[in-house]
């Protein structure tokens, strides 16, 4: 069983309490009407698929119910860091 550190509860909690929420740090465009079709497609559908560290959203749905961000290695499934929504990615990575 994987333990995930919830940055709001400040505890390591079992993975089964969490749900995955897709890639993190994707900001919704302020004015979607001003975007070209290509830019809108990129916002909606184009996602990173790295082999290695990946910043993603998780939700502690059966706990504090909050979304937060996590950096997870897609090869080893290890979480390197979790941090609150709105905070910058602590390890400075991009994917």
């Amino acid at each position, binding site marked *: 069983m994987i333990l995930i550190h919830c940055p709001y509860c400040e505890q390591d909690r079992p993975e089964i*309490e969490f749900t995955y929420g897709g890639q993190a740090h994707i900001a919704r465009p302020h004015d979607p009407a001003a975007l070209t079709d290509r830019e809108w497609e990129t916002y909606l559908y184009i996602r990173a698929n790295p082999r290695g560290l990946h910043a993603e959203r998780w939700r502690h749905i*059966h706990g504090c119910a*909050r979304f937060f961000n996590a950096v997870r290695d897609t090869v080893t499934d290890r979480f390197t860091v979790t941090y609150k929504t709105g905070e910058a990615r602590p390890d400075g990575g991009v994917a």
Partner: protein
Amino acid sequence: MLEIAPLAKSGADLAVGTKPHIGAIIGRPVTLSPAAPHSRWSLRARDPALLGSALGRALPDRIGTVLDGIARLGPDEWYALLEAGTALPVLTGLPVSVVDVSARALGFTVSGEGARLALERGCPLDLARLAPGSATRTVFETVEIQVWPTAPDAFHIEVWRSFAPWLWHALAEAIV
């Protein structure tokens, strides 16, 4: 000769027990009993100080702790488990939410030397680190529950009403 076992009970046949179910798990006694009726309230607010002053009650600071029957479940969410009949004030014009959810959940009490073992049958949380004075939402198998330790070997379990018959039977099965 081939014997066919009777079909398993359907979910509709299950009911929450009205009397304590007494048993043991790995030789340690456990009692599962329905809890007394409670008054339950869901409290939401971005500003804890505003909610506390509007209710005229102190609220627990840390997520996962309990103060005077109110548990902090998340950054902006509290859950009040109070004596039946206790009413909280009706608030208007404030950016807070105080909702009576008394009919939403049922309470069970799991107590005895093997109480923690019985819950560990379906709950992946490290219950040994959950001391009286704390409370948290978690899961039992796939059912969402709240665990409120009331003593080192006694737990109050909150479960949504529609899941309660299944949870009762799952726990009763664990403490044959």
